[in-house]
């Protein structure tokens, strides 16, 4: 059966708690429904794990041809070996034309391995698609979002692609009624080579950026640690919290707890002012929910300007001090 298979992601609840969806599962499901409709194919979904009946039932209330509940005791905890083997068996049995994944950290860990088993490449981190004479062309970003590329899929089906966070809207998933089909992969403990231990958090967060109304965030453009006070001054003048993009925290110029982005905090303040941040996707996913976004950057083509409401193209070392002065003037 050909069609578009959407592989959803759930997180098994710790010690007996219920499993929860990864929110990107719904975004990818919306993408899968739209792609299937445009290609005139059926859409179906898979959820993997153990004790996932409730999740499969939830998927069954969406507009899908059917839902695969892929269950096995060895899928209770995620491993690349286990998930790859289970999905390989499912795909070989049902022969989808296209397999879509949410572009999560977990998918980055196993989907390239799965695609390799089919002599295919995972077209990863796509932001959209269009259908040209029956075949999908996926759009993905190059050079950290500075350029886009149209990527055509070739070779024998199935094709594999993953969908970037926020590229499709979860609330556009269409409701319907689907049948749940159980699938029990044949897995043995020996195939799983890595032994995952319990997930943990480094330390309690002392800084909660999620409750801040105004965030002033600093990136690579600041050049060195000694320049951080320039931006700190701006945060102070605005009465906002100071935050940073990943490279700043990696370098130890600001503590990790002030990091915004996919590996840091996700914020949606009234105003997010990005200083010297080019706007790699890993950063954008953490802040594009802000009500107003302001960007100061020397590169007019920086991807940050794609999400900014207001922008100043210029040297932050000149613009920021001028801005602090003007704010102080305005505040009297």
């Amino acid at each position, binding site marked *: 059966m050909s069609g578009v298979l959407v592989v959803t992601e759930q997180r098994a609840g710790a010690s007996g708690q219920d499993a929860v969806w990864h929110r990107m599962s719904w975004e990818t499901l919306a993408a899968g429904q739209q792609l299937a409709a445009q290609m005139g194919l059926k859409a179906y979904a898979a959820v993997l794990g153990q004790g996932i009946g409730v999740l499969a039932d939830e998927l069954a209330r969406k507009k899908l041809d059917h839902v695969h509940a892929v269950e096995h005791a060895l899928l209770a905890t995620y491993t690349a070996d286990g998930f790859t083997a289970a999905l390989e068996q499912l795909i070989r049995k049902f022969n989808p034309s296209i397999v879509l994944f949410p572009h999560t*950290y977990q998918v*980055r*860990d196993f989907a*390239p*391995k799965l*695609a*390799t088993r089919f002599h295919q*490449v*995972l077209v*990863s*981190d796509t932001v959209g698609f269009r259908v040209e004479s029956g075949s999908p*062309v996926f759009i*993905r970003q*190059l*050079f*950290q979002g500075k*350029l*886009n*590329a*149209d*990527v*055509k899929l*070739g070779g024998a089906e199935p094709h594999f692609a993953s969908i970037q966070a926020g590229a499709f809207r979860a609330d556009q998933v269409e409701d319907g009624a689907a049948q749940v089909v159980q699938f029990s992969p044949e897995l043995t403990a020996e195939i799983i*080579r*890595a*032994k995952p231990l319990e*997930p*943990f*958090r*480094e330390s309690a*967060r002392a800084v909660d950026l999620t409750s801040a*109304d*105004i965030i002033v965030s600093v990136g*690579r453009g600041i050049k060195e640690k000694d320049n951080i006070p320039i931006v700190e001054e701006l945060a102070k003048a605005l009465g906002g919290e100071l935050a940073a993009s*990943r490279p700043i925290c990696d370098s130890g110029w600001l503590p990790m707890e002030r990091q915004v982005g*996919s*590996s840091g*905090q996700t914020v949606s303040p009234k*105003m997010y002012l990005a200083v010297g941040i080019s706007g790699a996707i890993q950063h954008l996913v953490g802040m594009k929910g802000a009500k*107003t976004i*302001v960007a100061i950057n020397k*590169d*007019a*083509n920086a*991807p940050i*300007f*794609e999400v*900014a*409401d*207001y*922008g*100043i*193209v210029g040297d932050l070392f000149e*613009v920021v001090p001028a*801005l602090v*002065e*003007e*704010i102080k003037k*305005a*505040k009297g």
Partner: protein
Amino acid sequence: MKILVSIKQVPSRDSQLRVDPGGHWIQENDLTFEVNEPDAFALEEALRLKEKQGGEVVALLAGPARASQTIREALAKGADRAIHIEEENLTAFDTLGVAQLLAKAAEAEKPDLILTGLQSDDLGYGQTGVVMAELLGLPHGTIIMAVEKIDTGIRVKRELEDGWFQNVEMPLPAVLTIQSGINKLRYATLMGIKKAKTKEVKRLTAAELGVAAAPTASIERVYLPQRTKQTQLLDGSPKEAAAKLVEKLRFEVRIL
């Protein structure tokens, strides 16, 4: 421990990129190039592991002749020797093709550990390491923030989303993709730069490795992204632009 580090040369971060006239790739002739940043962290981690465990660090790179510079820098930082898969037109290969080249070269070396950056700053597919592991039949770990040798192999700290981490143990040999920021990068010393000139660089070609370019996923067109949002750009001198922004913040955003 014999550690192979797979590195890539990419356009420098500050590059002003222009699409080539054919619209298939960027104009490369006026660009400067540097090591892909996550790969620099992978190399550093390999050097640190060698300093603790002893052994050898071999740098592996697929790319055109100009990438020799990136290899020399890796040798200057402390890699013992290097393998250069010299291929002028690497864009003719897709990710699977490049991983096949690297895996073929790696196979002959029989390393205990293969490290590479979690993704490249140019294509950003983020899968070369994982695909190499599959081709070589090895276990892997991705987005790694710490590596520790244990009796049964290695214990690695894997970054999850939203500030979560997970330790994973696996046997050797294995492949790890390294996250930026796992360590502090070293600079090459004068002595290192001098020594690099005498270190072995083995040159291989795709033909010698028996890998032909047969891409399944191909880039049809490269272009500047269309803005989805209308950005109000505030121009003038820094002072003028700042004054305009404050106006907007007061009367449109109403946050001042």
